[in-house]
């Protein structure tokens, strides 16, 4: 049981951050807090993937003339790093569009609280 915890502790910590982000998206009433919850969620996913690419005793995935290329266990797995660059760009894109929509909602209803907006929409 303790050995399982010691082997997988980065995954559990990233899952805790995922759950905090999902809780912020579902349970908060302010629209800005929901956007912040989405940000926490996306950052935790990136952390989960990068922590799954680590090898003990390895160095950064750049060619080092002293180490050579035969033993690939000396370089960290570069593939999740590449995929997470794409994920960061998708984070920026969704943040931009979310803020644009929030700006339009504020100009129309003069508030950012979800229940207040629903009440004003019914009138």
């Amino acid at each position: 049981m303790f050995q399982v915890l010691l082997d997988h502790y980065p995954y559990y910590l990233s899952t805790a951050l995922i759950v905090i982000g999902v809780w912020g998206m579902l349970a908060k009433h302010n629209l800005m807090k929901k956007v912040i919850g989405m940000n926490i969620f996306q950052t935790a996913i990136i952390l989960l993937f990068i922590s799954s690419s680590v090898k003990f005793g390895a160095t950064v995935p750049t060619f080092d003339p002293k180490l050579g290329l035969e033993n690939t266990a000396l370089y960290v797995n570069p593939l999740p790093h590449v995929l997470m660059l794409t994920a960061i760009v998708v984070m920026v894109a969704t943040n931009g569009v979310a803020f644009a929509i929030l700006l339009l909602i504020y100009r129309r209803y003069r508030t950012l609280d979800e229940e207040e907006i629903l009440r004003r929409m019914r009138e």
Partner: protein
Amino acid sequence: MKWLALFIVCLFVAFLFYVEVDMPAYGDPQAPANLHVSPYYIQRSLQDTETPNIVTAILADYRAYDTLGETIVIFTAGLACILLLWRSKRDDSKVQRPHC
């Protein structure tokens, strides 16, 4: 509403914790993610592309098509922001009238 959110979140975290016991150990060089195509990229990228940085070589040469799709994604996000927020001057009375 908050109790329903709490219940969903507890279900979610229980499911994720139960599944993550089966993931490979942290820092294991023999994990399945490090075995199939990643050693090919590490060993062949210097002689194929003369680029010491393996991450840039994968991003711009082996997986260039995905990088093109991603550039189109961020361009579409900028386009959506422009279409939402640049509009001609209208007076405020037209905006406040409720739509049916």
